[in-house]
């Protein structure tokens, strides 16, 4: 038994020794987060990701930092979606790219830090009738422009760039983009001189200054940069601009490491108050990574939503805000213009099903709002049946609301419309693993509550990129889908996009084939748009809310509550729900 299995014992012993050594090292190791002093933002090159930097670096989970901050000199934000493009002319409203465009680009006017009123930015003042910068008939706007502004590539900012940027968006007219926002309102534009820009609208529009001019699609890009890199081609996206934003904002783009992060540095030549810290946005971190990262101090702010905000509430060193509502209602859309060949094999939809207002009403009655708002959203949200979210001008609290599941009424409506016995089987497409999937599941369970075996909802939860493709198609290859609205500052921006028969979604989903009285809806919304007297406008908007309650084109699950989570050391935190998510202008923030 002496030298018997000595060799094998040696092997085993060595292995155990190694393991013990590791354990000992782990227990006694310094916090690996002790980086060397004063690391500036990594100076990797932009473009193709040759340096493969990592996913979120949750170094330790134990928050042992005292009053020091992690990552000094860099503000780190934990985002969820990866942008698909950083080009204002291409970005889809509500998509992750808008976050970046908000920081790197600027517009003539911006939504201010408080409230929906626009404030001056690249234009030096907000045009008004009184100042003569708006014509008497409300169609001609003159913008005096700021002098001494330079783009990140060093070229000077002039009115030519404004004309170029807006024309570019409208010429490219990309399907995923929001060019319609401009082309539906603008009639003509003119460079008066280097620092004066004039816009003539097709008709007076109460939404122009607060919803069109500050929109991300109206961002001002560097003409020189575009022309040196592919120029403007109608119907085609620009590969360079898609991945290399060149704007006038406080942050200058450094690098985009696909699937990992986006890096920005403080722009020294900024005309306004410079940013305090460089910026790094970490991409693709699932909620649990973001939660842990925030608690460990690896992130300074994170993209949060009601479904997991409870996990960071009360954590040491973390501040959570939960007041107020976002202006991005979560909705389920009805596609009246689907092609049966596109739908999943299991789908079975009777002819004219979604065209019948009673059917859409029935769906609105069937949904279990309480389950969604109070359980899934944890109470961070409220009910809202139609397209003027709470907090936007014109919202009428006295208007009727769908806020209760009413199965009896739903059944009655299905029977009246003649579909109760035949039933249906519909797939609802949604992004996976987020609130939208939860809304879809609540909807599915709500239909199950009817106890009609012929009625079935299937939840098709897909990767975000796959959903975006489907969502951007015309027609959409599903009969129903879940998403939230884009935030706008003006009621007509919502109505034009989501309720107008000839509006954006009206055309994609063929609202005219579904509204009981499409012309009436069209006329009402049109008149609200051109009505410049707020009191009169409010009356029209009230009527619209009643009409849309009776003839809903959407099922609005809830208006999501605002939740945000950040480290205590973040200073100067301001948030406006009208800014693209996460509703933060990082240039305003500091830490310490």
């Amino acid at each position: 038994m002496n030298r018997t299995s000595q060799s094998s014992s040696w092997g085993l012993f060595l292995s155990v020794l190694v393991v013990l050594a590791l354990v000992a090292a782990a227990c006694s190791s310094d916090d690996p987060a002790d980086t060397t002093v004063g690391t500036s933002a990594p100076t990797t090159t932009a473009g193709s990701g040759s340096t493969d930097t990592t996913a979120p670096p949750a170094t330790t989970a134990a928050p042992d930092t005292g009053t020091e901050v992690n990552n000094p000199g860099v503000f780190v934000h934990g985002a969820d979606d990866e942008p698909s493009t950083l080009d204002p002319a291409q970005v889809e409203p509500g998509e992750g790219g808008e976050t970046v465009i908000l920081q790197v680009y600027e517009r003539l006017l911006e939504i201010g830090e408080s409230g929906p009123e626009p404030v001056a930015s690249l234009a030096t003042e907000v045009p008004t009738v009184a100042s003569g910068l708006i014509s008497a008939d409300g169609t001609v706007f003159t913008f005096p422009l700021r002098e001494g502004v330079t783009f990140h590539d060093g070229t000077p900012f002039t009115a030519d760039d404004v004309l170029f940027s807006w024309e570019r968006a409208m010429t490219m007219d990309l399907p995923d983009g929001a060019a319609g926002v401009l082309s539906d309102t603008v009639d003509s534009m003119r460079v008066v001189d280097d620092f004066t820009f004039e816009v003539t609208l097709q008709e007076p529009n109460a939404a122009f200054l607060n919803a069109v001019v500050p929109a991300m699609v109206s961002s001002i890009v560097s003409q020189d940069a575009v022309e040196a890199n592919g120029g403007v081609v109608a119907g085609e996206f620009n590969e360079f601009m898609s991945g290399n934003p060149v704007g006038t904002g406080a942050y200058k783009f450094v690098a985009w490491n696909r699937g990992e992060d986006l890096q920005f540095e403080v722009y020294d030549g900024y005309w306004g108050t410079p940013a305090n810290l460089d910026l790094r946005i970490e991409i693709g971190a699932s909620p649990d990574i973001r939660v842990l990262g925030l608690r460990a101090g690896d992130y300074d702010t994170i993209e949060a939503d009601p479904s997991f905000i409870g996990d960071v509430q009360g954590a040491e060193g973390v501040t959570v805000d939960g007041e107020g509502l976002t202006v991005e209602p979560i909705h389920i859309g009805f596609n009246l213009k689907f092609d049966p060949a596109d739908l999943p094999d299991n789908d079975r939809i009777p002819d004219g099903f979604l065209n019948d207002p009673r059917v859409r009403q029935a769906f609105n009655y069937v949904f279990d709002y309480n389950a969604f708002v109070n359980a899934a959203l944890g109470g961070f949200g409220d009910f809202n049946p139609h397209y003027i979210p709470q907090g936007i001008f014109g919202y009428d609290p006295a208007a009727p609301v769908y806020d209760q599941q009413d199965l009896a009424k739903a059944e009655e409506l299905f029977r009246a419309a003649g579909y109760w016995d035949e039933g249906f089987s519909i797939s609802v497409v949604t992004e996976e693993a987020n609130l939208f999937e939860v809304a879809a599941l609540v909807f599915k369970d709500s239909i199950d509550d009817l106890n009609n075996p012929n009625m079935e909802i299937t939840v098709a939860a897909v990767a975000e990129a796959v959903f975006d493709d489907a969502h951007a198609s015309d027609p959409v290859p599903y009969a129903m889908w879940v998403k939230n609205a884009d935030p706008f500052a003006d009621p007509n921006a919502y109505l034009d996009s989501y309720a107008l028969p000839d509006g954006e979604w009206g055309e994609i989903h063929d609202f005219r084939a579904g509204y009981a009285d499409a012309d009436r809806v069209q006329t009402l919304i049109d008149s609200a748009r051109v009505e410049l007297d707020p009191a009169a406008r409010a009356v029209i908007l009230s009527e619209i809310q009643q009409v849309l309650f009776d003839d809903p084109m959407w099922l609005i699950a809830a208006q999501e509550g605002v939740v945000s989570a950040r480290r205590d050391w973040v200073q100067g935190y301001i948030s406006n729900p009208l800014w693209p998510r996460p509703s933060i202008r990082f240039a305003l923030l500091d830490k310490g």
Partner: protein
Amino acid sequence: MQIRDYILRRLMVLPVLIIGVSIIVFALTRVGGSPIGVYLQTGMTQEEVTELEERFHLDDPLPVQYAYWAGGVLTGELGWSGVAAAPVTDVFLPKLAATMELAVSAALVAVVLGIALGTFAGARRNRLPDHITRVFSISGAAMPLFWFAILLLIVFWVYLGWFPIGRSDPNIFARIDHPTNLYTIDSLLAGDFGAFKDAIWHLILPAATLGYGATAIIARMMRSSLVEELQEDYVDAARAKGLPERLVLRRHARRNALIPTVTVIGLSFGFLLQGSVVAEIIFRWPGLGRWMADSVLRGDQATIMAYVLFTSVLFLVVNLGVDVIYAYLDRRVVLGE
């Protein structure tokens, strides 16, 4: 002589197998939607699309299409990865390096531990240590990697906080150059010990997780072949002769037992390759496996096909290599199929 024939025969079969795999991959591309989807980038003009259709002969019969597709692959036309927003070939190498770093580390763990464990158990057949090792090694083979990884994550990352996830701390990572794209090597080359420690620290958890299954397989094989060896005549003869040096016996037996184990080491390589997909997802490792997982969910066919081709060729080559080594080691191997 026989061995050379054996090697030659295997080498000649190799291209046939590779072509066979490519046919399967080609068939998959035809099953899954638009054939040129793999080469399409958003925003291409109609002319560019038509040009692509001509280049790959999409109106011609399938065998012709295959020929052009295969030709494309051989010249490096692997298509456009939607996930990486770049041609597959551009992004492949850095991700491969990351996965190799992980897989090799796991393999080292598996080989050392597996052989030791297998020997330990095989020498004590059907006694308690053998049973325990057997349960361990079968549990390793039956262990769902995604579950094991999550368990380790919960214990070592969430609760104990000993190890980080991901491949590196970006601040440290950015400090050094990356000539080889292997973080451990590059940090040593740069003489940056802090970076090296960062690399190792991030490597431990995923490598241990990934290596666990391979350890089990290797241990099991080592154990059973050692048991077999110990039943051979020469062992009995040596014992009957009263050779006191049981160590010598053990050495001989063990060395002979190592031979089939070599094949299993090759097999476990396949195990590591597959495990890397799941391990990279859970530990946020930026390698081929995670790229493949993202591609699967987002319908990025180019990546999927390139990955299948690459891993199959790698698998074949490694297996061939292992079999050749085995043939050299064991002259008694019957060189039939």
